[in-house]
């Protein structure tokens, strides 16, 4: 079944078309949400919401548009809205995590103080620093950078998702890369 046939099927309330569409694109949606959130449970929740929106607003979908472009766009919007609405809550959760993690480390280190677990901690810290540096980007830089570097979309695809010119996308990603690297250096400058 082509995407066009799937959309047509959903438009005509055909359950099996919707099931095929969900199976075909759930990896794309889930991984896109996850690359912004880095939290599997929340990414799964938002994935459900993305497909619900697709089902409910299929009549608005332009026939000449690409389904994957639409899915990327809905996924990014829903995820960023979630992050915006939960900034306060996640800030509190981060503080909680920070303290519980400290306790965990304490007990872990007491049991096995190996080089291996220390390496993992450093690696984990590096990943956190990278994610925080990406999160600090402005909205458009974050979208373009994440879709390019974490989701491997081409500049052409990103320009379609974001409705921007190719050169704007190039500029956004270039500036985002420098900003992320500058943030990373900022962390290690203090160390």
């Amino acid at each position, binding site marked *: 079944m082509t995407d066009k046939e799937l959309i047509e099927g959903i438009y005509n309330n055909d359950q099996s078309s919707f099931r095929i569409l969900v199976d075909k694109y759930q990896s794309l949606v889930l991984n896109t949400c996850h690359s912004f959130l880095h939290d599997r449970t929340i990414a799964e929740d938002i994935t459900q919401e993305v497909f*619900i929106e697709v089902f409910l607003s299929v009549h608005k979908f332009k026939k000449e548009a690409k389904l994957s472009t639409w899915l990327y766009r809905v996924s990014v919007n829903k995820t960023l809205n979630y992050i915006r609405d939960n900034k306060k809550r996640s800030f509190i959760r981060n503080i909680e995590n920070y303290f519980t993690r400290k306790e965990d480390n304490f007990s872990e280190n007491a049991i096995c103080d190996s080089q291996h677990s220390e390496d993992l901690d450093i690696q984990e810290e590096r990943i956190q620093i990278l994610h925080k540096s990406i999160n600090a980007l402005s909205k458009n830089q974050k979208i373009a950078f994440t879709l390019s570097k974490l989701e491997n979309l081409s500049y052409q695809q990103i320009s379609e998702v974001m409705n921007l010119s190719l050169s704007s996308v190039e500029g956004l990603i270039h500036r985002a890369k420098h900003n992320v690297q500058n943030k*990373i250096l900022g962390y290690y*400058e203090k*160390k």
Partner: protein
Amino acid sequence: MKCKLVSKEKIILYYNNELSPLQNEEIKNHIENCEACFHLYSNLEMTYDLINIKDSLETNPFLFTRISQRLVDIKNRENQTIFQPIYHKMAQALVFSFVVIIGLLGGILLGSIEKPEDYEQSSVLQTTEFYFNDLEQEKMEALLINEE
């Protein structure tokens, strides 16, 4: 640790291969001999390179079932909100007619308890009835406006 000779921006340009060959060689030599710059450069490399690790998530086989369930819930909720105003209107109409009936019965009752002279009594009754009707009519209009 901070280096006074080389800026963060220079290290970034060097890392991204965006310097001229001459500058590139200069910074390369500097980083090899400056502890602060080596610390920054090596940490930038080890951290930023992690962007290339792709962890593709496995999909959830129950996703479609969950979505279907949520769509059913949404439809049920929609149906409820469609019926709610109808019940609401019916209840309002009932209360309204109840008030009218009680008002009329009360008026008739009052009229039958006190019996002054015939002419006066009927005029008083008539005017109170008019006031009463005016009030009720206003209420009815307000009700319709509110409903719109």
